[in-house]
């Protein structure tokens, strides 16, 4: 039963990675460039939600909506200033600018909110779903379900709407999408908007899950999610999500069977091995040669 319990922890942690990893896949899929400020979009979303929930005393669902809205605005802004001017050029400038954003946003939140780690006002302890010796707390259930719903909504959007079709098309062949009359500036902004909404929601869920909101909360999460996205196949949303869940589960199994000190070493050894043998990731495809 311990193993099932462990898998549930892994699933909760993994779904947080998945929310960020899906965003990396959206952004990297369409621009073939990486943002280094995604963890701070996650963090800003978390703090905005905390402000709404604690500061304004509004319910957590409103906090979640606020987190997603604020993160989306921030993500679209980052695209506008760090990516659009360099479209089609070197990916060095966006990388440097987003690293700058990452540092500046952490500093800004530190100044505004202080360095102390802030708790979440709703404890996760009241509710417990117990089956045999396995028990799932309310917050674990919330994290897993909310992530699942958000990823499902994202998939629905990109599979079933015409904007989703445009997004997928532009990720496959940017110029062909332009040729079809797709407004590619809007499409890229859309990719950043969607990615950031998931990140903002993920920030709140993370803060609530661990009962900890702090300016650096996005740093390690973003790196691990980027690794997870790479593990699954960075240019496919489902691959990245699968990679996120896998990373969470691998980490929790390492804690169970070996020790928590080794979990990162094990997780990243697996990542490196996967990339050595299958550079496009487990579920990714090799990039098509573009003629």
């Amino acid at each position, binding site marked *: 039963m311990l193993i099932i319990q462990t898998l549930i922890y892994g699933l909760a942690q993994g779904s947080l990675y998945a929310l960020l990893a899906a965003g990396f896949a959206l952004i990297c899929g369409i621009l073939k460039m990486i943002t280094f400020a995604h963890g701070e979009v996650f963090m800003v979303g978390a703090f905005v939600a905390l402000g709404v929930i604690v500061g304004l005393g509004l319910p957590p669902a409103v906090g979640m909506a606020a987190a997603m809205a604020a993160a989306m605005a921030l993500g679209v802004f980052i695209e506008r200033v760090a990516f659009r001017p360099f479209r089609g050029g070197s990916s060095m400038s966006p990388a440097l600018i987003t690293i700058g954003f990452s540092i500046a946003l952490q500093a800004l939140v530190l100044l505004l909110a202080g360095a102390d780690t802030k708790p979440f006002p709703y404890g996760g302890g009241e509710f417990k779903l117990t089956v045999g010796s396995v028990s799932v707390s309310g917050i674990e259930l919330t994290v897993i379900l909310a992530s699942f719903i958000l990823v499902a909504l994202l998939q629905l959007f990109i599979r079933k709407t015409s904007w989703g079709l445009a997004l*997928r098309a532009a990720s496959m062949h940017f110029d062909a999408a*332009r*040729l079809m009359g*797709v407004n590619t500036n809007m499409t890229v902004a859309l990719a950043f908007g969607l990615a950031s909404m998931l990140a903002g929601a993920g920030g709140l869920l993370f803060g609530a899950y661990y009962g900890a909101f702090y300016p650096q909360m996005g740093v390690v999460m973003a790196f691990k999610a980027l690794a997870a996205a790479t593990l699954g196949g960075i240019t496919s949303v489902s691959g990245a999500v699968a990679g996120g869940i896998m990373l969470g589960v691998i980490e929790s199994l390492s804690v169970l069977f070996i020790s928590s000190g080794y979990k990162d070493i094990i997780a990243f050894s697996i990542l490196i091995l996967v990339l050595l043998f299958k550079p496009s990731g487990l579920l990714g*495809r090799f990039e*098509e040669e*573009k003629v």
Partner: protein
Amino acid sequence: MLEIRGLRAWYGNVQALHGIDINLKKRELVTLIGSNGAGKSTTLKSITGLLKKRSGHILFEGEDISFYSPARILQAGIALAPEGRWIFSDLTVEENLRMGAFTRPRDSLEGALEEQFELFPILKERRGQKGGTLSGGEQQMLAISRALMARPKLLLLDEPSLGLAPMMVRTVFSLIKNINAAGTSVLLVEQNSAMALSIADRGYVLSTGRIALAETAASLLSDTKVREVYLGGYANGDGI
């Protein structure tokens, strides 16, 4: 219908077109030939608005479309089947076709799809298959069909015969002829010059970014200099 005046275009600081003039009348099939690197694709990318760094005027049905976005140019009635086909390889054949009608009202979609499936039965057969899994010839048909989904008045084709087996080349060329006969004007870019001239009304010969010759297709075909320089391998003119 299409009037290009003094078109110049650049890639960075390198000038690819040095002021070209092209005219195309309604229902005409005009071909633009010339050796590799002459600027044929650049001309088509300029017309469709994909290439931004340029000067000169492009008029379509009297309207100056020089500074239109690719979407507006498409809506004005010009569609391109690009060199290399640019198929969305992970989208299905049907989704590729739907992308072709992206700028059109949604209620016209089903009708346009049915039309294309009638014109290209093979695409109907493959409608649920990923674009990337099609053969070269099928992909070329998909590229042409996707361009037609926009119901263009003027169809631009960039090297539709590239990389196709001779049998398939014939099929594609007779298809182009039929599309034109049905009322769509066509600007056909080809390296397979003899074949292109054999179905075209008129031809332009492009050479290092300049128009070297502009004649009827028949006189270009019989012009010995054109034959020597551009029709080399196809000099014995096995038309359709």
